């Protein structure tokens, strides 16, 4: 019982404070201070995350089980552990300033890899667009036409057939209306979820909805 009640109490106090401070200027300094606590919690949780990464990949590399076999993807785990170790050592030994090994490794390996992942989006977009624009129904046809107009409108800097204006109209009217309709629901949903969590109606995050 205490295992559920104490978190619920903490949640209620913290949630109520956050709601109340929105209306009370005098609480602003306390609000800022509470926000700083998140940084402290984050710093501790990074240690937990690091432990998780090391534990998971070490288990994969080790020979385990009755047959003393490694995980089938153990080589990737070894790479992950090697990368983690090298970066940690580079950071601790030489620091993270400009021209250090850490910074060079970051610029030479991690940044290009991240950029590559991001660049893959272009191909995924093309594939997704192909599927989305297949005219299988009236709705899909309307979607296709709207998309074509918006795409040409973005390309066309002149006023060919008034397409930029039409494109702007589509974005500013039907598109914006739909967005705002979703946002209205999202806003109320967020407020409702927050309220349910704060007053303890929703406790699924504690693992059980009932005491």
């Amino acid at each position: 019982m205490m295992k559920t009640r104490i978190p619920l109490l903490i949640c209620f106090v913290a949630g109520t404070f956050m709601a109340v401070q929105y209306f009370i200027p005098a609480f602003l300094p306390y609000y800022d201070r509470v926000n700083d606590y998140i940084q402290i919690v984050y710093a501790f949780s990074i240690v937990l995350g690091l432990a998780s990464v090391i534990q998971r990949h070490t288990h994969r590399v080790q020979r385990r089980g009755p047959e003393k076999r490694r995980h089938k993807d153990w080589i990737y785990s070894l790479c992950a552990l090697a990368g983690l170790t090298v970066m940690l050592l580079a950071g601790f030994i030489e620091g993270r300033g400009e021209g250090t090994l850490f910074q060079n490794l970051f610029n030479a390996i991690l940044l290009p890899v991240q950029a590559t992942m991001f660049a893959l989006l272009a191909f995924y977009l093309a594939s997704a667009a192909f599927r989305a624009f297949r005219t299988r129904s009236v709705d899909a046809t309307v979607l296709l036409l709207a998309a074509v107009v918006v795409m040409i409108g973005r390309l066309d800097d002149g006023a060919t057939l008034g397409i930029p204006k039409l494109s702007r109209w589509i974005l500013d009217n039907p598109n914006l209306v739909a967005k705002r309709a979703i946002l209205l629901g999202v806003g109320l949903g967020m407020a409702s979820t927050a309220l349910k969590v704060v007053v303890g109606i929703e406790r699924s995050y504690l693992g059980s909805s009932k005491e």
Partner: protein
Amino acid sequence: MVSRAGKHVSAVNHQVEGRVEQPKTGSPPVSRRTTGLAFPFLALLLTLSASLTAAALFRVRTAGADVTQDAPDQSVAPAESAAQPEPTPARPVLDLVVRDKPLDAGGTLRITFGRAPGDSLGLTGVARYELWRQAPGVDSFAVARTFTARQRLDRFTYDDSRLWTGQPYVYRVRTVAADGSTAEGAASPPAVPTRQWFYTNKLNTLVAVIAFVAFILGFVHAARRGRELKIRRIAGLDAIDEAVGRCTEMGRPTLYIPGISTISDVATIASLNILSEVAKKIARYQARILVPNRDPIVYPVTQDVVKEAFVTAGYPHNYRPEDIYFVTNDQFTYAAAVCGTMVREKPGANLLLGMFYAESLVLAETGASIGAIQIAGTDAITQLPFFVTACDYTIIGEELYAASAYIGRDPTLLGSLKGQDVYKMICIVMILLGVALMTAGVLTRGEPFTWIGDLLRVRGTGG
């Protein structure tokens, strides 16, 4: 603005020069045979160029006027060169006003004052204004802030912060002329910074929040008393059962991605609520769930949620802590790792529920390529089209927040959903009413209904 105007001016000048000089420098000689045809053409060209030149000249003047208006430095220089400021003696500032800053947590005073008599934007001999502050319990004044006189301001405003709340402060302004002479303004009456206890400009929001809370709690109370509440079907949430069942039949794990946002994001909280219900189902089916995490704070929470769900379902021994793990807090590294997991582990179902950004399509397309059932849900409007395209079912916006109640079928939670729906209807009616009344106000060319706009406007902290 200045540089753009400047470029515009020079571009127009080039056009003007080109058109004027063209006949002088290099127009080809016109043969007599073509004179008959060429004359009207040339005349037309000349007329056109003359009118264009006139228009361009007019635009140059207009642009010049714009530059004068927008660029203080350029505008001041000619005025200065035309009339050098007389070394007039400094005169004191007469209208120093010190007030408590409204709607704040205390510790701040708002000081405003106009220019000294005779000072025109710092061009008539005044170099600067010095704001002097006398702190409580101190006899002397100290400079709090200096203002250069050459600014395009008629009045200077400054929020003096980090003061003692409830203590009196006195200010005065010293005018310093270019020749070094100074003039002390009168000291202000003592002003006390105070803290306010309510944002009066947020009264409408408070009323709306109270009404919302009342609706939610009212319907929850009704649901607890046994009132039957009907909730519309949500296909994406119904499909979760199907997806988990499929995974069990195929002997494959379910991959649950709780988004890449932090725990402070309500979408992540909603995702954790859904995770609890999904994990219970998976535990009952004695199947396996994989939860890769991006946020180190979300990671222990997901671990605890899944563990508790397995315990609640009565299968604690099936819980595998190594299946709920932290990957990295870098966006695309996380996406790459999860894509790798999809390809290697080949999950039967991918549940992407929470807040997603640019990695959404990478994850969803990779999931589609391995043939998994994909159920995605997010309130990120920009990512919804990607999920709709690449996933089998998409939970849109508010449905994400309703999912936990929908899956768990807890009457109390369903009551809160009903309250939320009713409140949304009220919001829609109010929006329509507001639009109609504001439109009526515009049509009648009066302002009888503008107060409605003020009433509904949500204001920030600054008022």
